[in-house]
């Protein structure tokens, strides 16, 4: 009897919970209506102010911005003066004319961001005005997929009323080249350029080399041969040069002669540089120059290698890496790091903004793109506040000579002295729509080899298998020699 009673209590508890759940289901559905309501209020406001901004009254009430992290939101809210406030949870910003920006952020890894974005872009034609994608972000690794003229999901900047030759004249040329489609029409724009440097720990440098002067250390890191001798010295003192084989990857990848896949072809050509990376990394790893506890990047072990308890001498990063990765992971006093030249000049990443074809807010979109990527005052501010290397030649040249750009995190050093010459000498490797997958999969496959799990040929095989799974249209994979 007692047992029966208990089970009755249990069942009724479950049912009550369920009913409560179903009841609040109605609440879920009603939320968008609430939003609609507030959007209506917004339109009243803009109608009131319509006299001065007649051109904007026929635009949609919601600007949807798709992005893969909070960086774009932080940059836009910092420079776009029309933004009045942003909600605490970071999902909605309200402009002074009542228009709302909805931030839709999904992580890059595992293809989540592109899945969601592609889904939205495919439904763009049938989506209601307030659900249309207006602006989206793309990384250098996959920008080609979205600037393709045949697919035409990103508007040419000229259709928005932006003239790349005059409005974007101060941008670095290579950022404009990679933002253009196969016909040379620019369809994307960026506020940053990403020349890489070598960031090293001052205390380790002092202990091992007797100096932490960037110029002196720069001599010890000027090319791969010297770098190897330096690594040997560090090893003798009990330090690792870099955290893992993945850290050096971008230097090799960026100096590839041909794209992973040439336009119109279905063959992946693995560049000799990639093979060099594998063989060099193997040598370095066997010699003990890498921290054996770190496997690849973007994991907690890698982040811990940037902390004071780690024994890693240097990281290879562009400006964004210092600001977004090293600063949050450093747990000691500011001023412990410094930058100098890397053994090879390279470029790593870059976030581009694109206007989605079919946007219902073209003039807002134009304003945002110009404010973020062309306004030199804004770009100067970004460089000063966030130590980002911005996409304005004149500003960056001035910054290299201006000590007010010095960074506390780098112990008062002005990093632009090393960034700017790097940017001038950047030669971009040709891009393809397959870059992100190839980069990710080649690091995974050869990561197993570099950890001595499998032999070299097995790693090649695994790479081919993974590529065929990811890209069914690839017919052949060519290896050098």
């Amino acid at each position: 009897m007692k047992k029966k009673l208990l089970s009755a209590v249990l069942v009724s508890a479950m049912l009550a919970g369920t009913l409560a759940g179903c009841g609040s289901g109605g609440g879920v559905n009603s939320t968008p209506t609430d939003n609609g309501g507030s959007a209506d209020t917004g339109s009243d406001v803009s109608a009131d102010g319509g006299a001065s901004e007649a051109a904007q009254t026929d635009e949609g009430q919601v600007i949807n911005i798709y992005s893969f992290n909070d960086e774009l939101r932080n940059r836009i809210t910092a420079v776009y003066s029309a933004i009045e406030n942003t909600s605490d949870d970071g999902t909605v910003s309200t402009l002074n004319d009542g228009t709302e920006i909805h931030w839709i952020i999904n992580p890059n890894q595992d293809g989540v961001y592109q899945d969601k974005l592609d889904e939205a872009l495919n439904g763009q034609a049938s989506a209601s005005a307030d659900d249309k994608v207006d602006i989206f972000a793309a990384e250098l690794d996959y920008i080609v997929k979205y600037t393709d003229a045949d697919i035409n999901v990103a508007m040419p900047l000229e259709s928005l009323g932006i003239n790349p030759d005059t409005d974007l004249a101060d941008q670095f040329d290579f950022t404009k080249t990679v933002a253009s489609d196969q016909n040379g029409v620019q369809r994307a724009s960026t506020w940053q350029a990403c020349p890489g440097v070598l960031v090293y720990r001052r205390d380790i440098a002092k202990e091992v080399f007797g100096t932490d002067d960037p110029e002196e250390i720069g001599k010890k890191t000027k090319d791969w041969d010297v770098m190897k001798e330096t690594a040997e010295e560090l090893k003798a003192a009990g330090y690792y040069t870099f955290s893992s084989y993945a850290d050096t990857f971008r230097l090799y990848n960026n100096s590839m002669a041909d794209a992973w896949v040439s336009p119109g072809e279905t063959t992946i050509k693995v560049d000799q540089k990639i093979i060099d990376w594998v063989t060099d990394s193997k040598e370095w790893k066997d010699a003990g120059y890498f921290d054996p506890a770190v496997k690849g990047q973007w994991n907690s072990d890698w982040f811990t290698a940037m902390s004071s308890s780690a024994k890693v001498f240097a990281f290879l990063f562009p400006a964004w890496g210092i600001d977004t990765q090293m600063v949050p992971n450093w747990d000691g006093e500011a001023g412990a790091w410094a930058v100098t030249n890397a053994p090879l000049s390279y470029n790593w990443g870059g976030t581009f903004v694109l206007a989605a074809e079919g946007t219902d807010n073209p003039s807002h979109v134009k304003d945002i793109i110009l404010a973020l990527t062309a306004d030199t005052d804004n770009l100067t501010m970004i460089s000063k506040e966030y130590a980002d290397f911005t996409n304005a030649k004149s500003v960056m040249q001035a910054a290299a000579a201006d000590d007010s750009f010095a960074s506390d995190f780098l112990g008062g050093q002005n990093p632009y002295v090393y960034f700017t010459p790097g940017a001038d000498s950047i030669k971009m490797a040709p891009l393809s729509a397959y870059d992100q997958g190839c980069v990710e999969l080649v690091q995974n496959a050869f990561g197993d080899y570099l950890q001595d799990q499998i032999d070299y040929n097995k790693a090649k095989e695994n790479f081919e298998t993974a590529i065929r799974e990811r890209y069914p249209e690839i017919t052949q994979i060519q290896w050098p020699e």
Partner: protein
Amino acid sequence: MKSKEYNSFRTVFAHVLLVILSFMCLFFFYILFVNSTRSHADLQKGFSALPGSYFFTNLTNVTNDGTFPMVRGIVNSLIVSGCSAAICIYFSALTAYGLYAYDFKAKKVAFTFIMAILVMPTQVTAMGFLRLITKMGMYDSLLPLIIPSIASPAVFYFMYSYLQSSLPLSLVEAARIDGSKEFRTFNQIVLPIMKPAMAVQAIFTFVGSWNNYFVPALVIQSKDKMTVPILIALLRGADYLNRDMGKIYMMIMVAIVPIVLVYLFLSKYIIAGVTLGGVKG
């Protein structure tokens, strides 16, 4: 005498093993708890057995992050799991009763059919399922996560075994003689008898649905409809979040604590319910 000694040895051994297993079960939760009370910088310094003071900071960070709406996710998960469990046990009981209490031509075929699909992995139909619900306009909604649980072969099988051992058909006959309609008989006479079995399966279905990741990950698109497992999986890939490990641990805490609390509160009934069901099954 000898067997008494043997038994006391067994008692000691049993306790040791139980303590070890309990330690394994609880240890991870303890580390999770400790780490969720520490800041990222503290965590970078290494592990400590004592909690830190960042519990509320981390908690505020989690609840204020609109990119990973954890609270929203928990509400969504509760709706989906609660409704799934309710309709699953009701309709499984109905089906089990239909096949048990009535004789009809297709009975054997129907029974064999259900047994045949018992082990079919849901993932097998995932692709077609996605296309179907897109055509039906149910893409990116919670409904396709709930309605299909009407047909749960495993729950049906459990209910059917239970009916066999605990519902004498004479009871149904007696109800008919009293003039009870078939649905009334089921709802008022059969259901109460099946309560223990339904309670067990309600828990299993609830937990199963709460933990389900594969199907929601395919179906749900927008942030405000995501369930907890999708949000957790997003965490694994969100490099920009890994800058604050304290927040990540707190997110895992927030994701599992509600169900643990409910469980601790109801554990007596839940375990009694599981036991009750098993006796008859």
